[in-house]
């Protein structure tokens, strides 16, 4: 061990005194005590996510009728007046094609809210955090709920008349049962 000795704990009680020029090997502490407590206000300022159970969705509500003009004003220039997509800005509206969930065989079939998004809560989470691209994070909860209600209605997805934290988490998206867990494990079989 090259003259090293393990003296943890014993050092603290003085039972293990280091000899001159002895090199000690020490275990790390349980914690280093670095950083400081994050205050509730600091956390609230950035804790913006909402999960698929609706946890994190804020108070407020919106309707599809209220969302239509907001979409026209803030979204249509990139996503198209009817959510058809423009250039690299994705198509938003459309249901599963007659041939079914054919995305693996045909990359040209656009993935839309109606045919691919598995959770409606993701719409709120994503729009609120990242849209519109030129002024991300600028939409109020009311505007966001309204846009979500509008996009769900235009995709033909049944919802309650008003979208809020409770009713959004209750929305069943058509593609949700399509999603499966990763079954790749390495090894000889290619999956």
């Amino acid at each position, binding site marked *: 061990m090259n003259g090293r000795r393990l003296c943890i704990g014993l050092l603290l009680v003085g039972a293990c005194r280091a000899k001159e020029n002895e090199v000690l090997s020490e275990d790390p502490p349980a914690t280093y005590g670095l950083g400081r407590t*994050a205050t509730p206000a600091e956390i609230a300022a950035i804790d913006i996510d909402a999960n698929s159970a609706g946890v994190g969705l804020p108070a407020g509500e919106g309707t599809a009728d209220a969302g239509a003009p907001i979409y026209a004003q803030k979204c249509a220039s990139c996503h198209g007046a009817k959510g058809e997509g423009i250039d690299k800005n994705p198509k938003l509206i459309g249901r599963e094609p007659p041939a079914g969930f054919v*995305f693996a065989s045909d990359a040209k079939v656009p993935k839309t809210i109606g045919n691919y998004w598995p959770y409606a809560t993701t719409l709120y989470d994503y729009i609120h955090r990242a849209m519109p691209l030129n002024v991300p994070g600028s939409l109020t909860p009311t505007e966001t709920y309204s846009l979500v209600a509008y996009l769900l209605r235009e995709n033909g997805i049944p919802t309650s008349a008003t979208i809020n934290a409770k009713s959004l988490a209750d929305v069943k998206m058509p593609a949700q049962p399509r*999603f499966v867990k990763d079954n790749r494990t390495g090894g000889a079989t290619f999956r």
Partner: protein
Amino acid sequence: MGRGYSRRVNNPSDDRRRISRREMLQSAGLAAGVAVGAPLATLLAQAPAPATAPPVIAPQAPPDASKVPGFPSAALGERSPFEQPALAPLNVTSGATSTPLQTLRGTITPADLHFQRHHNGIAIIDPARYSLVVHGMVNKPLRFTLDDLKRFPAETHTYFVECAGNGRAAYRAAKPEMSPQDVDGMTSNSEWTGVRVATLLREAGVKGTGSWVLAEGGDAALLSRSIPMEKMLGDALIVYAQNGEPLRAANGYPARLLLPGYEGNMCIKWLRRLEVIDQPNMSRDETVKYTDPLPDGTSRQFSFVMDAKSLITSPAFPQKLTSHGWWPVTGIAWTGRGRITAVDVSVDGGRTWHAATIVGTAQPNAHTRFEYMWNWDGKAAQVMSRAHDETGYVQPALEEFKRVRGKGTDYHFNAIRTWNVAADGSITFGA
């Protein structure tokens, strides 16, 4: 540079582009209420170059460099004027910019050539105002400054970062004039230094219910991904240094998540918070994106690990073999499941294979350089490489990949690549 070697020509149209770019940045900065004063100057300094690089003037060297004094030292070392590697495509704010793999040897990607994938541009973050918040299902929510992160025990490892979509264009729309950069340039390999996520989680004290961690960036996309607790308590790092220096802005300065072997999208750049949670968040980038449609009508979710892959970087387009005789067939292989154990090379389209030499030592979850010395007889050839990893996995043939994953699948393109060598020595990308 610019001391006798003129490198690039500035033409008026480039200047016009640059001005309009500045104006755009200025108005964007003011509209968002950020970047006043010095930060704006920083933003301007970061303004990307035009979409296509200006024409290059051939450098000149003195007839005999031993007969004239050389240049004095400068603040930063520069590449020889004879070397002009470049990322491409440029001027991308929501998309990918790829590493020129064909210009590299060994395994390390120079930091300024690391591939970039942004979801709403390169965030400029003041390290003095940076913080990382760890909260959620923890006993003690904590806020760390950058200096705090650097006070924890550091680890240094060499790991690749590969975009889950790497190789999509080559798979879906192969073109003969694709270079290694075009084919698979969204993978890079760096020495990363930082602190284990587990160390920070221990400081905060994870509650028993915590099973996932939501990681979120502080960029304009606030990119967020859910990561299993097992990975976060394992080899996951929060890194602040890349190849010995602070992270490049485009690679997440001042600190990012680095998940060895996992798809690049999860290695959240400009990391601002980690929230301990008890179920995956189902954020956009783990549901709508970064999921893999399969031929059986399902879509594979949480496909985190990047499977074994290899790419020949020479001979490859646009290189030309100038004579028959000995040529090194060289490239990189990597796997997110540990170490590369072997690489095979075929020069006859996969009919027969030869064991390549691993150059140096294969490190886990890192690019590994391979080489096979090929005595080219001057006839047309199809050159391929095939990687094996320590789990017994073998890089799949293209036809097998298509059968299992489908022609339209969206991520994790790791099929065997083919370079076609013509009798005149010219090389094109096959598939």
